[in-house]
């Protein structure tokens, strides 16, 4: 799975939870949860959806590596291979 494909999946899943966001406006290097209104339930649903789409398990301990879109995607690419 290429970096681009994973990016598309992440954005699709994110849109599923927060339909109102516009991918174009998202700054990939800025904290995601500052740009998108995700409460703890939304965040958990987001991770569960990624787990189902990419068969990747994301332990709570790794949450701090996923603050921005870029770090999240790098994490997933590296984990998914």
């Amino acid at each position, binding site marked *: 799975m290429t970096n681009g494909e994973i990016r598309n999946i992440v954005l699709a899943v994110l849109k599923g939870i927060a339909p*109102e966001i516009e991918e174009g406006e998202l700054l990939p290097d800025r904290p995601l949860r500052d740009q998108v*209104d995700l*409460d*703890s339930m939304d965040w*958990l649903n987001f991770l569960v959806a990624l787990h189902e789409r990419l068969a990747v*398990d994301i332990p709570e301990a790794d949450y701090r590596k996923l603050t921005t879109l870029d770090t999240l995607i790098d994490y997933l690419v590296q984990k998914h291979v």
Partner: protein
Amino acid sequence: MIEFKLPSLGADMDKGKLLEWRVKPGDRVKRGDIVAVVDTSKVAVDVEIWNDGTVHELIAEPGVTIEVGTVIATLLEPGETSEAAEAARRTRPAPAAVPVQAEPAVIAAATAPAPVGERRRVSPVARRRAVEMGVDAEAVAGTGPHGSVTSEDVERAAAAAKAAPPAAAADRQGQMRRAIAAAMSRSKREIPHYYLSERIALQNATLWLQAENARRPVTERVLMAALFLKAIALACEKYPDMNGLCRDGTFAPAASVHVGVAISLRQGGLIAPAIHDVQQKSLTQLMQDLTDLVKRARAGSLRSSEMSDPTITVTNLGDQGVESVFGVIYPPQAALVGFGRVAEQACVVDGGLRIIPAVMASLAADHRVSDGHRGALFLAEIHRLLQQPETL
């Protein structure tokens, strides 16, 4: 006088064509004699007569196709004269009506039993059209079998909605706003609120949660909110005056703890549907209920029972980053618990200053039902429960 009718000559024969007569008027015939040849749809067959007698009159003409049972000739009984026969014919009683068999009763198709459970019967295409046309299928009157909602019903509803002012969609938003406003104003008008708050240490809870989630797959991960829900429910069992409904000024404690969870809707607005019997449920079950409830609340497909019967409400604004929240009670409930942000805070523990995760919990309660003293004990119980997360 004997009537000789065209006999049925085969299982699938309804009519036949007389080909030729083998007898003529005046001939004497006896049982088993061949009197005619008839063409069935398949083959020419000799036709016998089963009576002795004398041929009187040949009625059917060769070459004519006639129905089985039609009189094709008449005969005189042995010894009967034609004059007597003619006289008898005029006074003959009407032939006995052929007994018509009762129309076989249509065995009624077994009607399906009345729908069980409260999920409305909406046909698959009606559900699909409802989504396409922005109609809430559950709210449409059904004219299909057993009152089910059909695509025609949805299309009719959509047309009716379209005919309504274009602000209909926005109207829904306004409707919700008006409903919240009405509830909140009534609450403030009728319920003498008193407010308490308590800082609750969450070190044990946090550590236990991290260990627990490390052992669980992501799909069964538990959030702190689930611990809060369970703690409230168990505390309500100890302090029933926090969990019940006020009807016409008198308070009735509820048999079970249905916790209304305040959920903010992405396009604005707030609803607080209930999770039922929280006190009996495991944390895993609560997480599943919570996930399902949030999804359905945001998809607009909540069951009516979930909206109407919470016995206490919790609001968890910690996610929005406020330190503490003092809510407004949802009438006719008698209490509302609020949780602020879970964050590292400086606390005095066993005489020493420690940096530990903690949360500000608050209670808004109805002074007609309970006093501050009871409220404080209730909050303390929540605090105590959260120190033993493994018991929740």
